[in-house]
C-alpha cells in the first residue's frame, strides 16, 4: 500500500459553543438545538442523528428556549424577542418583540394555536400562531418576579409557571392565577437566596414536577396545590426536566452533569398505586446539563460541555444493537476546514473569523513511525474578522490558494489572495453580482476559474472569476423543485461536473460545459454526508449518514459494478456501526482505485481493486497486517484500509505532493478550555 507523509495539525483551536436549549419535533423526529452563540442546529434523529441543517448565530442573539409548533420552529431569548426560523433558507424568518423584557421560556399548547412566553417582568404573554406569523393576544395575570419556566397542561386549559420561590398555576382561558405553590429554599447558606424554579412539567394527571436551584425535584398535586414528594437530587441546581411522551418517565439534568431518571411505577410489585421513583443516574457530562429531551427510547442531553449526548434507555431498546449504543456528538457534521491542495494552505472557519495557515515543511524521508524534523514551521498568514453581526456560515479556499470566500446569512464576500515570498495581500473583490447575496455552501472549481454558491431552492449560482472581474454566469436549478437547501457541493477535477446534495437526500449532477442538469442520482433514504467525483473515471462516490457507500457512474448514469457488488455483499457490520458520519471523500491521483474518506475517529483508504471484507473478517486489520510477513499479507488484505492513528479529526486531505494533512482537535483540549465545573467531592480529595 505504501507510506504517507502526514502533516499532523493540531493548531485549529476550534471551540464549540455550549448547548443552551433543545426541542424535539416528535412528528418529524428532528431535534433543534441552540447554542450559546445563537447558532441553531437541526439533527435528524430518524437518520442516524445526522446534523442536517445549521443556522449560524448572530452577535447579541441568545436563545433561551426553543419550541416546535408542527414543522415550525420558534425561539426566544434574553433579547426579548421571539424568532421564527426559515428552515429552507436557513435563516431567521422574522423576529417579534414581546415587550416584556428578557424572555426565559416559551411553550406552545398541544393544539399548536397558542404560544406562551414567560418574561422577566412577570407576565406570561400569549401569542396566537397564525399561518405566516404570530400575533400578540393577551397577558396572563401579571406576577411579581420573573417567569422562568412554563408548561401547558395537555388539555390546554392550565399553565404552570416556575418563578422565584414559587410555582403559579394559571387558568389559560381566564388568565387568572389559580394556585400558588411555594417552593422551599435550600438549607444552610442558600437559605437567604431565592430559589429559582428552573423547569416545570405539567403532566396529564395534574401532577406538576418542578426542578429548582436548591437541587430538588418536587412532585405537586396541581389540583390542590400541595406538595406530594421531594427528591433531593443534587447539591447544586436542577436545570432541566423532560418527560416522555407517555408521561411515565421523567429526567432531570443537574449542574453536576448528571441526568437523573424518575419513573412512575408502583413501588411494590402487584400494587396499583404508582408513584414517582428515582431509578437511574447517568453521568455523561462534565458540566451543567442545560437542555434535555426525552425521546421514546433515549435521553438526549446537552449543556456547558458542548457535547450532545444520546443515551438510550436500555429497557426501551434491544440490547447490543446500534440503537443501544451511547452516542456523543462533539463535532459538526460538516467540514470547517478548507484546503488549497496545490498551495498547501489551510483555511479554518470560526464563527467570527477565518484563519489562513501555511503548512510547514520537512526535510528528507523517514521510516514509517518516524517524526520528521520540521524545517519550516507552519505559519498563520491571515486572520480575517468577519464583517457585520452575522456569524460565518460557510467558507471556501480555491485549490490554487488564490481566492478566499465566505458567506453569512445575508452576505457573501470574496477575496483575492496573493502570496509571493512572504508578501501577503488580501484584496476584497468589491463588485459581486447582486444575485450572490447569500450562500449555504461555497465551492471553487479545480482550476479556480469559477465559484459555486448554493442558494435557495437547491439552486446553485455559478460565478466566473478572473483577474479583472467577477461575473455572474448562470443559475443551476434542479428539476425536482425541492425547497431544501444544498449542504454539499463538489466540482470535479476536470471541470466538467458539479454535484450537489440537499437535505431531501437528492443528489443532482450538472454538466458545467453545457450548464445544465446532467442527471439525478436515485434518491436513497439516508442523507448524503459526503460526495465526490472521481477525476478520471467520472464516477460519483456518495457516502450517506447510515454509512452506506455508493458509486454512481456519471457516464452510464447508473451505479457501477463495484457499487452493486458492495451493496450485494453488504458493508462490514463494524463499518455500519460507526457513529460519526464520513465528512469528506477524495481520491488518490497516484492510484485511481483509491478512495480516501474520513470520519471523526479514523480515515480510510478504500482500495476498489481489493476484495471486500466479509462480515466475519477483521475490519480494522492494519495491526495484523503489520505483524505478518509480506507474502501472507495478501491473504488478509481487504478493501478497507483504516488508520486510527489520528483521532478527533476535523479534516483529512491529500495534497498535490501526495502528503496527507490531518487536522486533529483533541476533545481533551476542548475540555481543558471549558470553564471549571462545579466542585465535587471525590474520593480521597
Amino acid at each position, binding site marked *: 500500500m505504501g507510506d504517507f*507523509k502526514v502533516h499532523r495539525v493540531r493548531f485549529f483551536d476550534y471551540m464549540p459553543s455550549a448547548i443552551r436549549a433543545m426541542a424535539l419535533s416528535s412528528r418529524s423526529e428532528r431535534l433543534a438545538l441552540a447554542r450559546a452563540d445563537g447558532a441553531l442546529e437541526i439533527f435528524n434523529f430518524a437518520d442516524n442523528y445526522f446534523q442536517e441543517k445549521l443556522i449560524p448565530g448572530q452577535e447579541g442573539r441568545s436563545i433561551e428556549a426553543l419550541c416546535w409548533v408542527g414543522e415550525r420552529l420558534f425561539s426566544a431569548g434574553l433579547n426579548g424577542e421571539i424568532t421564527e426560523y426559515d428552515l429552507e433558507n436557513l435563516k431567521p424568518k422574522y423576529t417579534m418583540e414581546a415587550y416584556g423584557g428578557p424572555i426565559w421560556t416559551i411553550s406552545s399548547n398541544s393544539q399548536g394555536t397558542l404560544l406562551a412566553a414567560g418574561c422577566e417582568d412577570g407576565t406570561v404573554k400569549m401569542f396566537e400562531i397564525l399561518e405566516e406569523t404570530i400575533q400578540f393576544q393577551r397577558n396572563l395575570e401579571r406576577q411579581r418576579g420573573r417567569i422562568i419556566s412554563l408548561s401547558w397542561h395537555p388539555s390546554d386549559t392550565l399553565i404552570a409557571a416556575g418563578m422565584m420561590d414559587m410555582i403559579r398555576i394559571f387558568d389559560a382561558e381566564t388568565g387568572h392565577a389559580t394556585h400558588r405553590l411555594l417552593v422551599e429554599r435550600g438549607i444552610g447558606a442558600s437559605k437567604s437566596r431565592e430559589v429559582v424554579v428552573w423547569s416545570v412539567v405539567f403532566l396529564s394527571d395534574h401532577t406538576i414536577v418542578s426542578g429548582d436551584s436548591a437541587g430538588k425535584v418536587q412532585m405537586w398535586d396541581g389540583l390542590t396545590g400541595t406538595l406530594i414528594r421531594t427528591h433531593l437530587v443534587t447539591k447544586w441546581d436542577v436545570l432541566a426536566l423532560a418527560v416522555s411522551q407517555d408521561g411515565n418517565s421523567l429526567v432531570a439534568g443537574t449542574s453536576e452533569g448528571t441526568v437523573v431518571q424518575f419513573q412512575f411505577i408502583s413501588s411494590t410489585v402487584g400494587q396499583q398505586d404508582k408513584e414517582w421513583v428515582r431509578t437511574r443516574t447517568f453521568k455523561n457530562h462534565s458540566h451543567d446539563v442545560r437542555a434535555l429531551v426525552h425521546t421514546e427510547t433515549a435521553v438526549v442531553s446537552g449543556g456547558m460541555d458542548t457535547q450532545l449526548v444520546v443515551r438510550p434507555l436500555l429497557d426501551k431498546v434491544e440490547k447490543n444493537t446500534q440503537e443501544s449504543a451511547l452516542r456523543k456528538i462533539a463535532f459538526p457534521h460538516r467540514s470547517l476546514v478548507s484546503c488549497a491542495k496545490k498551495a498547501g494552505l489551510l483555511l479554518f472557519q470560526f464563527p467570527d473569523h477565518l484563519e489562513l495557515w501555511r503548512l510547514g515543511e520537512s526535510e528528507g524521508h523517514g521510516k514509517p513511525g*518516524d517524526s520528521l524534523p520540521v524545517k519550516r514551521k507552519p505559519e498563520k498568514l491571515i486572520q480575517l474578522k468577519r464583517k457585520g453581526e452575522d456569524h460565518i456560515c460557510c467558507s471556501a479556499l480555491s485549490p490554487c490558494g488564490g481566492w478566499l470566500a465566505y458567506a453569512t446569512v445575508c452576505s457573501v464576500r470574496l477575496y483575492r489572495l496573493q502570496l509571493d515570498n512572504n508578501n501577503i495581500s488580501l484584496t476584497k473583490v468589491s463588485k459581486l453580482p447582486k444575485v450572490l447575496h447569500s450562500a449555504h455552501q461555497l465551492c471553487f472549481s479545480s482550476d479556480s476559474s469559477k465559484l459555486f454558491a448554493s442558494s435557495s431552492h437547491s439552486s446553485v449560482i455559478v460565478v466566473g472569476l478572473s483577474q479583472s472581474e467577477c461575473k455572474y454566469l448562470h443559475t443551476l436549478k434542479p428539476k425536482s423543485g425541492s425547497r431544501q437547501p444544498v449542504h454539499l457541493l463538489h466540482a470535479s477535477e476536470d471541470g466538467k461536473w458539479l454535484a450537489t446534495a440537499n437535505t431531501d437526500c437528492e443528489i443532482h449532477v450538472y454538466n458545467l460545459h453545457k450548464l445544465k442538469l446532467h442527471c439525478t442520482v436515485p434518491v436513497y433514504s439516508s442523507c448524503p454526508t459526503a460526495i465526490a467525483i472521481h477525476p478520471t473515471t467520472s464516477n460519483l462516490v456518495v457516502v450517506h449518514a447510515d454509512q452506506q457507500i455508493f458509486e454512481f457512474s456519471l457516464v452510464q448514469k447508473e451505479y457501477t459494478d463495484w457499487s452493486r457488488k458492495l451493496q450485494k455483499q453488504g458493508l462490514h457490520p463494524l463499518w455500519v456501526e460507526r457513529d460519526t458520519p464520513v465528512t469528506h471523500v477524495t481520491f488518490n491521483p497516484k492510484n485511481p482505485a483509491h478512495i480516501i474518506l474520513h470520519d471523526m475517529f479514523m480515515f480510510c483508504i478504500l482500495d476498489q481493486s481489493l476484495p471486500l471484507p466479509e462480515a466475519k473478517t477483521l475490519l480494522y486489520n492494519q495491526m495484523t497486517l503489520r505483524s505478518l510477513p509480506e507474502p501472507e499479507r495478501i491473504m488478509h488484505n481487504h478493501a478497507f484500509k483504516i488508520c486510527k492513528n489520528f483521532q478527533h479529526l476535523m479534516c483529512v486531505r491529500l495534497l498535490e505532493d501526495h502528503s496527507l494533512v490531518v487536522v486533529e482537535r483533541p476533545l481533551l483540549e476542548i475540555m481543558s478550555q471549558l470553564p471549571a465545573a462545579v466542585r465535587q467531592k471525590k474520593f480521597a480529595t
Partner: protein
Amino acid sequence: MAALYEGYTLCRLVPAQNLSNSGIQGIEAERDSDHVVVTDSTRSVTLYKVSDQKPLGSWTVKQGQTLTCPAVYNSQTNEYVAVTDNKVIRIWKEEDILLDKAFKATVSSDVWKVHCVPGGEPVALFQRGAVRLFDSLLSAPQQPIEEVLAQEEAIRWSINIVAETQLFVIYTTEQKGDHFLYLQRLNPNILQRYRLEREEPGLSPLSFSASYRDKHIRLLYLYPNGHVYQSVVSVRGLGAEEGAQALPLPRSLLLGLPVGEGLLEAASALILDEAHVAVVGVPHPSAGSGKDFLCIWNTNFQTLQAGKEIAGKIYGQLWSYSSKLFIPHGKTLSVIPYECTKSSLASAMGKLRQARTEESKAPTSVPSWNNILHGEKAQPSRTVENRKTRTTRKTQSAPSLTTDQVLEFIKTAPVEEVQKEVEGLFSRADIQDLQPSVGQLASSLVSRSLADPAFYTPSTLAQLVHTQCLCHSVCPDLVLLALEKKDYFLCQLCLQFFPDIPEAVTCACLKAFISMPDIDAEKESLDPDSVSFMDTLISPEHGHLGMQNGFSPTSMEDNCSDALIGGGAVTKTRAEDKETSTAPEQICPVGKHKAVLLNEVLQAPYSDTYLLPHLKDLSSQNVILFLQYLQFLYLKYSQDAFPQMHGFRSPSLTQIMDWVCLLLDSHFTVLVMTPEAKGLLLNLHSFVKSQVKLFSELGKIESSLQELNKMKMKKDVGQYSIEVIELF
C-alpha cells in the same frame, strides 16, 4: 541522617525598631507536643496550637508593667507562671481572661527566670543565683533570698533538667570575662560551680544548650569564632565537695564551624540528640555569605546533615520542642519540623546490621571508625584536654584507682570489691576515654572467672557489655563463660551488642537456650524490651484479631494447602490436629523468656555456610521445637503487622524465614523420617508456598507498574508534526 522539613509560620513578630531583638522572650512547651506558649519581650503571652498555626489564647499585662521572664506552663496544675517587673510572680489559668485579676505575689529579690519541666514543679531562679521551688517560695513570698553570686557576676543563661528523679537548675554566669557553670541540685540542695575554660580573649559564649543522658549532663556552647564545645558533667560525681572552689570544667571541641570573615554575632547552637546539633546564624559552608542558614550538624562525623536558608534577620534565638524547631527571623516566627535518625558509619556505608532495631541503640563504638577517622584529626586538642582532665580528676579523688590499678586489683580481690572498683571507675570516667580499657577489664574479669569458679561478676560484665565498647574478638571467652554460668541475661546482651559472634558460639547459645527447661528460663531477668515484645506477641487478645485488609493469612493457607494437597490422609492429620487443640500453631511452643532468648539468636548476624555444619549438632527434638517456634512467629507475623510497627527489638520476617530454611536444610532427612514433624513440615511447606506466591504477585505488580511507566513515555504530540505512516 537528619532532615529539615518544610517550615511554616507560627506568627508574625514585632521586632524592636533597630532589629536588635526579635521581640520574643521565650517559647515554652505547653500541655502537649502541639502547644506552645510564646512570651514577647514586652507585655503579652500567647498560647498557640502549632499544627493549626493559630493562637488559642492571649494574655497581656497592664501598660507600664513588663514581663521579665518567659511564661511557663505548670502541667501539674494547668497554670501559667510568669514574672512581671522582676519581682511580681503571676499565676493564672487558661480560662482567666484578665491577667490583673489573676494571682499575684511579690517576692523580695529580683527573679531571673522561672523554669518548669513537664510534670514537674516550677522553680524560680533569682538574679543573684538563689533557687527556690515554687511551693516554698509562695508559702512565704517575702522570705529572704540569699546571694549566691559574687559582685559583678551575672547570670547569662539558665535551664532546668530532670536527671532521673533529681531536679537540676543549671545556669551560667559571667564575671569579668570569666564564665562559670552552676549546677544546682534541689532536694537536697547541692551547688557545684565550674569554671569554663577561656577561649580567645574577649570571646564569650553566644549560646548554651544542655541535655541529660546516661547520668551525665552535657553542656554545649558556641563561641563567636565558630567553635562548639562540649562539656560533660557526671551527675553522680556531684556532691563530693560542696561548691567551695570553682572546678575547672573540661571541654572538648565538638565542631569547628566555618564562620567566614569576622566573628559570629547572633548565633545559637542547640542539642537535638546525642549526635545532632542545630545551629543557626552560622554561614552555610557552601553558600555565600550574606545568607543565613539553619543547619543540622552531626557531631559524630562532623558532617552537615541538613541546611535551610532562613530569610530575614536572625536573632540568634532557637528553641526545639517535640521535633520542631522554633526560629524567629525577620518578622516571623517559623516552625521547622526536623528529623534526626541515628547515624553511624555503617549506615553511611550501607552495611547496617539489623537496620531497624539498631536505631534504638546508640551507634556502637566498637570498631570506632569514628575516632580513628575523625576523632584524632578533627579534635587535635582533645587528647591533651583529656589527659589534663584525667590528671585533675586524679588529684581531686585521691583514693580511687586508675585503670591499671583496677586491672591488677581484679586478679586478686574478692568479688564485691572488684565490682565496686570497676563501677567506681566507670562513674568517674567518660566511657569514651575508657574504651581501650574496657576490653582489658573484661578479659581480665573473664580469665579470673575461668580460673576461679567461685569468682563471677555478672553485673559488672553486663555493665561492660552495655558500654558497647566490647566485641567478641576482644574477649572471646565471655559468651561461653556466660553460658557456662547460665547467665542468660549476659548472653542476651552479648548477642545483642556483639557484631562478631562466630557461628559456632551462636549455635552453642541456641543449643543451650532451646534445651534448657522453661522453668529455668522464666527465672532469668532479661532485657525488658524484648520481654514485652514477646508479651504482646503471646497475649491472647492478639490471637484472632489480626486481619490485614480483611485478609487472614492463616485461613487462606489452610484453604490452599487443603485444597492443593487434597489427599485424605494429610487433611485428616490436620483435622486431627485441630480437634486436639483449638489451633496448635497459635500457641507459643516455648516459654516467654526462652522465646526472648531465641529471638536474640535469630537476630544475630551469621553466614549460612559456617552456621550449617554447627546446626547439624542439634538434636531432632530441638530442631522440631525450634521449627515450631519459628512457625508460631511466622503465623503471628503474617497475622498482623504489629511486631514491625512497634519499636521493639524483634526478629524480622526475613530472618525467621531464613532460619526455617537453614534448619530444614540441615535436618531435612531426619525430619522427614520423624513422624511428629510431618504436620509441621506440611505447614512450613504452605508458608513457603504463600511466600512464593506473594513474591510472584509482587513481581506481577512490578512488571505491570513498569508497563504503566512505559505507557507514560508516549510522546507528546505538539501543535504540529510531520509523521510518516504506513498502510498495509
